[in-house]
């Protein structure tokens, strides 16, 4: 498609080496999409539309396809996400252990709804699918770190620490 926008980003040398290595482990380029998205997230801090186009070009996929996969998963850091990404697991075991209360408490304290970012750009709150830590439900993931077996009191403390 000739009038498609130009791809503005580039992976680092190290990133490209990683992709080469990765492609050797998969039957086709498409199969490497999730780890390459993760690489983009690491290299650029989040995944914006330019990153989608870069990943699409790298793996010879349509940007639409990459976008569809990206938005299917809740776990990637997206453009505009705050300094702290609070991911509240909302799948069954966490739901049984009170993740709704956790989510509502966070919404109340931050003054935003799930899916939104605070005005100061500090917090983004997301309701996500299973974080794979069902035995320690309910779980909130803050950036890379898991906070497990949470209750409201601990949650409040966690927020205080993050606010500094």
């Amino acid at each position, binding site marked *: *498609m000739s009038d*498609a*926008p130009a791809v503005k980003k580039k992976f680092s040398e190290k990133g490209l080496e990683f992709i080469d290595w990765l492609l050797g482990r998969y039957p086709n380029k498409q199969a490497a999409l999730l780890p390459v998205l993760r690489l983009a997230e690491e290299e650029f801090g989040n995944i914006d*539309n330019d990153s*989608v186009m870069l990943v699409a070009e790298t793996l010879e*996929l*349509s*940007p*639409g*396809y*990459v*976008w*569809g996969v990206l*938005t*299917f*998963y*809740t776990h990637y850091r997206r453009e505009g996400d705050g300094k702290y990404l609070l991911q509240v697991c909302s799948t069954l075991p966490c739901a049984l252990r009170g993740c709704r209360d956790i989510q509502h408490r966070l919404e109340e304290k931050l003054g935003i709804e799930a899916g939104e970012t605070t005005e100061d750009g500090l917090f983004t709150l997301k309701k996500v*699918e299973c974080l794979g830590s069902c035995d320690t439900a309910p779980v909130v993931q803050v950036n890379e770190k898991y906070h497990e077996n949470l209750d409201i009191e601990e949650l409040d403390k966690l927020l205080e620490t993050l606010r500094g």
Partner: protein
Amino acid sequence: MTEKQTVNLTINGEEVEAPAGEMLIKVCHDRGLDVPFFCYHPGLVPEGNCRMCLVEVVKAPKPMPACTTPVTEGMEIETHSEPAKAARSDVLEFMLANHPLDCPICDKSGECMLQDNSYAHGNDASRMVDVKQLKPTKELGNGVRLWGNRCISCTRCVRFCSDIAGSGELTMVNRGDRSVVDAFPGYPLQNPLSGNVVDICPVGALISEDFLYQARVWYEKKTDSVCHECSRGCNVEIQTLHNEVKRIVARHNDSVNDYWICDHGRYTYDYVLGPERALEYRLDDSSGPADAPALLARKLKSLVDEHGADSLGVLASAFMSNETLYLLGSVLKELDVPVENIAACARADGKEETFKGGFKISADRNPNRRGVEAILGPSAFSSRAEGLLEKSKGPGLRGLVLVSDLPGQPLPAEWIEALNSADFGLVFLLENDSRIGEEVSLIPATAFSERDGSIINEDGRIQLVQAATQLPRGALRLDDLLQDVLVELGAREGRISQRGLFDEMAAIIPALKGARHAEVGKTGLSLDGGEE
């Protein structure tokens, strides 16, 4: 696998033999069983995501989707048992959970699979008390508009773009009850087959702006015909209301176009009633269309009587039907006009395009080049056309009859010059042309939607065209006019039917190999002995 293996199974207690590996839904449909579906489409790779086609497989722990379950030996299927019916009505309830139910203002209403399936398989009342998810309404590109709230996430449109068009513009974004179709920013829907996504969207989520609020589909008249925009001859259905073409949709034909047509063929019909359409009769000062046959017969006859048969020349076109070409040939034969004086014109070539799923747009932008070659001979476009033009510059050629019915392509200047300088110049005209002189006689030409007859595509497949609209103002169609001229010349007793005309023509023209009208049917007949 050289030999096709079959398996035996029972469906609703009846023993059935079916090819191994065939999907259950096809086996059921082939037997006339109503197994409802949304995401399944015979022209697309099955995905099995909507679950509308659930049937009971005896001894299986849960109902199975018929569209992705291959038949196996000894399988026992119940399509209408209580568990099967309950499973499907539950699926429908989920599907309607977020549906806006805005049928009264939805263009799909009346041909919507969600309406039909709800009516046949759903509940009569909603139990929904929760607030519905809202999704965007937006333009996706190429005049296709998305009503996100109506989307049932079947991915038919997504699969079409990736597997058939090969361009992959459409995608499902988000997950669960928030998922909806969209195009990535900066990459709008822009493949030349994009209109098909509107045809195959089972609900009113994708609507063509061309047809938006134009007609309620149940008031429309639907006519099976063939696209005239290139020599593929895709099978189409022309939908009309009050004698006006409202839209053109694809009609299934495995031997030509599968389930698809291109956007150019789909949206090129405005000229039929466009401001440039030529509708003027100008044969004689006082007479109207009704007098045309007698008048024309007299004029041609006296011309030939006075100046000899060689004084009349005719330029036909690659848009004319076989029948019209044949009738024209008959009139000229009756007048003894020599074959060298009969030529034809065609539209200039376009670009050939072949798509991932095999669909092809031909470079030859004429619907019936093969028909002209079969009936008037292959040299009609080349040496005879040049010869006739040359002759028209001399004093010998007194009368010239031109058929100028190529949409969007007026006659070349030299032909207009020849026409204007002839003693008797007559043109069958589709679109107004200010270069044509006052002395020249005019008769409106028929547009593609006003014709009956047959045409031959580039693969040598003869197919039937049917009139979906009438020529405006009670004008005569060219084929009827020519039949009447033959009557006036004493060559025929009266008009004969399309069917009779076809059979007569096919018996005489060697290239048509004695084909019968009845054999041609809805999907055509290969004259090259190709696959059937």
